[in-house]
């Protein structure tokens, strides 16, 4: 970034802060969200069409006000026959423990589904916790899995208090295959997209080894929610805690990102998340931003040739969001540009490590999907090789970019590689793979470490 663009960016941030200060004089630190727009290669080799990546990163800042936004959460629980026993007991326990973290003015609804749906606790404030707890404790498992209707009813409960100043999220638990009502991943993704656009995030928890991870991950991704693979029921508590932790630390929601590419720069594709490219413009949205977490939009761009030393702006970004602490709409602007150079080594040495890590992570996630598809087609050897290459790719990048997070992702690919041949092992690995992909794609937190380590 040149000094000039830096100055412009700073000036814009300052103006934004000033605006929010003027709007709410009592709010001291208006900037609850930090925007960073960076090119993967701030220096590009001159004399040819070049490709690079632009990352629009949004970071939730720690609020010194200490007052969190109220939440509106729907817990949608599978109580089909397969849940009976320890699974149901753990799910109930996890739900009750999660509710303990909520305040009285938070809103909760509990929906259970089997062959049919029951709205156990219609959307309500938590003044009567004992009644809610009793309702949860009374849940018994039996019947089929009307997952779609469960989500539909959960969404209806959320809508009763749908508010831009509340964190609206649904937590969906299932341990089996949806078998009543629409049950294809595509259909659930379509519903997820609709809910996401409405401001409802659906986080899905797959329990055990028999749920449909495609359905659960696509629903989560489409609504910008998180997904957890919980093999053992006793780890449900950790998953619930992570999701509630995220919801309770939300600083902004309804985030829209508009990225404009100036002349000479063409957006090619967006990595990892749904976004629309309309000519020179890229539109994307995020439902929530959490404190101390960075979420980003990664766009691959094609840059026209330029002479060494020339500075070319590659992206002008406008981000809008609802700041929950102040209940105001905020806007941030940022931009990124590149400078042409003749030195390949300069290009190499100046590349943005953080952006490169994100790129490696997203590319690996895409390749893992391809490898998974190969395995689904029964091409075991090809899948094994694809996972192996991915593992090596991530390991190399981890070393090259000194990024331990990539090493963890390499491990997941490695596990997939080791398990492709065995049906049962592959089932588990596939679920891990999908879970990891969601977290890579949405930059959402992995679930807290389980109390007891598996294996």
């Amino acid at each position, binding site marked *: 970034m040149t000094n000039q663009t830096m100055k412009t960016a700073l000036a814009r941030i300052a103006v934004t802060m000033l605006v929010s200060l003027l709007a709410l004089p009592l709010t001291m630190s208006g900037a609850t969200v930090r925007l960073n727009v960076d090119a993967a290669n701030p220096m590009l080799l001159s004399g040819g069409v070049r490709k690079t990546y632009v990352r629009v990163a949004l970071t939730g800042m720690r609020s010194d006000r200490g007052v969190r936004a109220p939440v509106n959460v729907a817990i949608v629980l599978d109580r089909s026959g397969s849940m009976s026993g320890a699974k149901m007991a753990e799910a109930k326990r996890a739900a009750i423990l999660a509710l303990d973290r909520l305040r009285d003015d938070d809103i909760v609804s509990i929906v259970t589904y089997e062959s*049919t749906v029951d709205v156990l606790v219609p959307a309500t404030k938590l003044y009567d916790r004992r009644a809610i707890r009793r309702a949860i404790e009374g849940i018994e498992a039996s019947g089929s899995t009307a997952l779609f209707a469960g989500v539909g009813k959960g969404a209806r409960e959320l809508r009763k208090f749908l508010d831009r100043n509340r964190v609206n999220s649904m937590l969906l638990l299932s341990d089996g295959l949806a078998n009543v009502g629409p049950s294809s991943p595509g259909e*659930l993704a*379509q519903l997820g997209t609709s809910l996401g656009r409405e401001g409802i995030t659906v986080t899905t928890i797959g329990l055990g080894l028999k749920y449909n991870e495609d359905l659960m991950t696509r629903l989560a991704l489409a609504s910008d929610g998180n997904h957890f693979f919980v093999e053992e029921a006793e780890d449900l508590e950790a998953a619930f805690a992570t999701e509630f932790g995220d919801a309770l630390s939300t600083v902004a929601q309804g985030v829209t990102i508009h990225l404009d590419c100036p002349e000479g720069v063409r957006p090619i594709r967006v990595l990892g998340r749904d976004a629309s*490219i*309309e000519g020179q413009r890229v539109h994307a949205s995020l439902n929530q931003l959490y404190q101390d977490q960075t979420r980003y939009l990664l766009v691959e761009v094609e840059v026209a040739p330029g002479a060494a030393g020339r500075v070319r702006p590659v992206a002008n970004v406008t981000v809008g969001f609802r700041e929950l602490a102040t209940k105001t709409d905020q806007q941030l602007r940022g931009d990124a540009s590149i400078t042409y150079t003749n030195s390949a080594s300069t290009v190499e040495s100046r590349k943005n490590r953080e952006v490169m890590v994100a790129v490696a992570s997203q590319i690996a996630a895409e390749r893992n999907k391809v490898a998974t598809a190969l395995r689904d087609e029964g091409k075991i050897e090809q899948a094994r090789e694809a996972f192996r290459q991915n593992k090596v790719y991530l390991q190399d990048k981890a070393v090259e970019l000194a990024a331990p997070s990539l090493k963890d992702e390499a491990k997941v690919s490695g596990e997939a590689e080791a398990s492709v041949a065995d049906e049962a092992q592959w089932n588990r690995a596939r679920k891990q793979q999908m879970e990891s992909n969601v977290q890579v794609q949405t930059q959402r937190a992995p679930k807290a470490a389980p109390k007891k380590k598996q294996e």
Partner: protein
Amino acid sequence: MKPRLTLLLLLIVVTPLAIVGWLGAKIVGDEQDVLQHRVSGLMTGQLRAVDAAISTALDAYQQRVLEEMRPFTVERDALRKRSRESALSMQFYVLEGAGKLLYPPVDSPGALTPSEREALARTAQIWDGGELLASVGESEATAETGWKAWYWGNGLQMMFWTREGQRIHVAEINRTRLLADLIAALPETDEVAPQLSGGRIQLMDATGTVLYQWGSVKNEEALKTAARIALRAPLSAWSLEYATAEAPGIGSVVAGGFLLTLLPALLLLVGLVLGMAAYFYREQSREMREAAQRVSFVNQVSHELKTPLTNIRMYAEILEREAGGEDERMSRHLNVIVSESQRLSRMIANVLTFSRGQRNALNLRYQSVVPDDVLRTVLEQFRPALSARGIDVELDLRIGEECSLDPDALGQIVGNLVSNVEKYAAEGKLLRMESGLDSLPSGLGRIFVVVEDRGPGVPAREQARIFEPFYRVNSLLTEGVSGTGIGLSISRELARLHGGDVVLEAKESGGSRFLVTLACRPVAAPTEGRPA
């Protein structure tokens, strides 16, 4: 008589009961049908209410889509933003009057976004075939809005259109979101109307796949469709079904209630019938009991009477012989004493025979006798009584040779028949007796005796019953005439024991004709004892 009576009683009891039962079953069955009809009507009504709720939810959805479409515009960026942000629609389109798409910009494919390209691929059949315009054209000219349903991918797809001047604005509905919203508007299981609990309502797509269902049931496998309707347009490809685990279950609960109200009446009727039967049975058995008591009394008395009677007869006969014909008046009086004592002996013999017969201990004592002699003796005994009533006797007796038979049995049988003629057929003024001997191929002989009169005869319907003990033809004829009612019964029993029978033969002119047959053994080997 016992089995016949039982049969009669059974008939008396069973017939009305069967009729009542049949009527009851028919009424209950009809009621069941009516109830079934009513219940299924109720179910259909319930489904119609659900259909209406879905329709309302669809209207609300349409309203919200319309809000998203307003203000109407053809500006590309605005429409793109709408398509990108709409939670209810997948994509918006604008058509000019002739059917050409103004948006998405089909004229400049390069300007299409990837999602627009996908959307056009999805909806190609609608635009290429002019289906939407056709649909708009079909609706009334004044209609400002309408739905277009079509199939693509995983099921029913929906488009909503609205007219604005010459242009038609179209929203391609997010199908799953629409379904989710419809589901959200429908009841949950714990909300189901209590009167239809135990049932389940299912919303189904065109292939019969359940989209949503509510109502708790115990056994999902046993669910059967009890009512079904198609949704109203534009969702007419979908249907609503009311399923219950046991369709007649609902009916029988109500029908059971109906049966409960019918039960007292039914019980009363059954009670009445049983009471009547019991009354008849009691009456009948009382008569039987009385007759039996009579016999048993007579039986006891008869034993006591037998010895003095024998003495009376013996001394009267001695006296008759000694008196010679000196005094005609005395001789006539003695004659009466003898014949009356003979009559008394016969009655006693009958009673004793009957009571022995009751105990299955009738014995025959075969003797070598000339049957005609036995017959003449019997007639001789009756002569005074017969002549007193003006009855002429015609004889045609043809068994002059000796036979081996029980003369007492023969005498008793014929005596009873002659006694009956004297008692009941005196007005015919004639007693005709005929006897003969048949030779049977087996070497055994058979004698027959016919006793005929010209009295009133036996009515056809009574003919079979006159041989039953204690049965007396109930008519003017028997009134005022004494009798135990066991004479013919004993005669037949004795005859059958003797390898023959007593039958009432058909007779053209008035009167009755009894035929007695008895087996007799050849005289050469006279034996005594019981025949088999």
